[in-house]
């Protein structure tokens, strides 16, 4: 076991994956609590598809992917949020439309551009080698930004998630909070998706908070527990993927799923 860790830490790409991965896992888990409780978690899923389209365009234009993907995904987040508030269009249908159109644009762009030697597979399901040195610095800065803003907005996050009408009636700007939440989610998804893949990134948002809610009963304990669970799952997922040479994103999803099952069983046994 010790040898395994020594071996892993000799590879720079593994260290990178663990650093960026745990930061993204932490951000996603913290935001996930509000997103899941507010029933916005599908917006996260939709945004990851938008990010796929944006990334493929960035690569075709030969621009650093994060510089294009982040603004595009933030704009998409605004649109989705606006639609979900507008009752005339159903938001699940809107997410479906935007997701598929983005994937379609991404696939067409990739097949048209020559000289891109990354295959669709690594976009869809993630690639641990996808990040270079400059990406990693930007990713770390952005995730720290997300964490700081989250902490500053924590109390509002709770109040609005728990009872939006009360918050609005007593003079809290709920819409401004939603904008902040969607920007933070957009950033987290873009940073995380190259490692986790388009198809799997939303699991980082959904799983940890659901797992924590099996056992914890207060908002604060759910937020803290889901953050810890998420980082632990990421760590084991990355190691698992190294040992068995299987895709990292998929391993992280599986460890999260195992954790959810374990917590559900614990809850039942505690009740008895």
């Amino acid at each position, binding site marked *: 076991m010790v040898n395994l860790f020594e071996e892993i830490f000799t590879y720079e790409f593994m260290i990178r994956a663990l650093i960026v991965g745990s930061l993204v896992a932490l951000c996603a888990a913290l935001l996930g609590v509000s997103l899941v409780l507010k029933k916005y978690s599908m917006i996260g899923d939709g945004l990851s598809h938008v990010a796929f389209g944006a990334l493929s365009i960035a690569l075709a234009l030969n621009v650093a992917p994060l510089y294009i993907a982040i603004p595009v995904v933030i704009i998409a987040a605004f649109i989705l949020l606006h639609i979900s508030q507008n009752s005339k269009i159903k938001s699940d249908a809107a997410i479906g439309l935007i997701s598929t159109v983005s994937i379609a644009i991404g696939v067409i762009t990739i097949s048209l551009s020559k000289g891109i030697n990354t295959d669709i597979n690594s976009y869809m399901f993630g690639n641990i080698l996808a990040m270079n040195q400059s990406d990693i610095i930007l990713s770390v800065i952005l995730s720290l930004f997300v964490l700081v803003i989250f902490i500053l907005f924590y*109390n509002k996050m709770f109040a609005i998630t728990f009872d939006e*009408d009360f918050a*609005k009636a007593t*003079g809290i700007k709920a819409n401004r909070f939603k904008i902040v939440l969607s920007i933070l989610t957009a950033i987290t998804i873009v940073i995380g998706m190259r490692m986790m893949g388009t198809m799997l990134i939303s699991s980082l948002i959904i799983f940890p908070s659901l797992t924590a809610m099996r056992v914890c009963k*207060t908002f604060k304990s*759910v937020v803290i527990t889901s953050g810890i669970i998420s980082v632990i799952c990421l760590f084991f997922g990355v190691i698992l993927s190294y040992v068995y040479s299987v895709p990292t994103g998929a391993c992280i999803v599986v460890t999260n799923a195992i954790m959810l099952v374990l917590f559900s069983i614990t809850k039942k046994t505690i009740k008895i």
Partner: protein
Amino acid sequence: MKILECENVCINYDDVRAVDNVSFTVEDGDFVCILGENGSGKSTLVKGILGLEKIQKGTIKYLNGIKPNELGYLPQTTIVQKNFPASIYEVVLSGCLNSKKIIPFYSKKDKQKALEMMKKFEIDNIKNKSYQELSGGQQQRVLLARALCASRKLLILDEPISGLDPVITKKMYQKIKDINKQGMTIIMVSHDINYAIKNASKIIHIKNKLLFEGTPKEYEKSEIGKLFLGGCHHG
């Protein structure tokens, strides 16, 4: 001293005019009961006052220095989804949030206020319990404590006793009356006409349009009051 003035207010609910040309005023220290049948626009009117529904016509003005972040609100039904993780303390404390300006965290004073309110409603001994595990009466007490944390001058209650059993209803009514006696202005939407007549300082009866505005005594003598009271006694 007037603190709230509604003038010719019209509000739509799902494209139907729910509140039609309603005008009334609220004085400092008033206990206003808004009466009316189901679907008469009571809740919509209250939501308009709180800024949750768009006002189509007319004006709603807070006077003499009342700001929206100085009032408390008890919603008619707070549909909190099942298994929402929140302790009583977290919910009550969130009422203090509207008095914070730029500072994002609660001060010692806020926490003390929350504790004080929980004591007032006898929920301080279960403050770490999950909100979801509480009975209807306990939940209502938690929400009233939260509303009082948010409020300095005006408390707006939308059917605070709906779904509570008679014993708890009585206790809840007593608390509301006490709060009013301590100087808090209260606007309460209610079905309970007998309670309103005994305790309110002003009665407003609406059926989309304003049917009556005045004291309980005047209400008892009025046509609409007699009709409504009669209906209640027989029903």
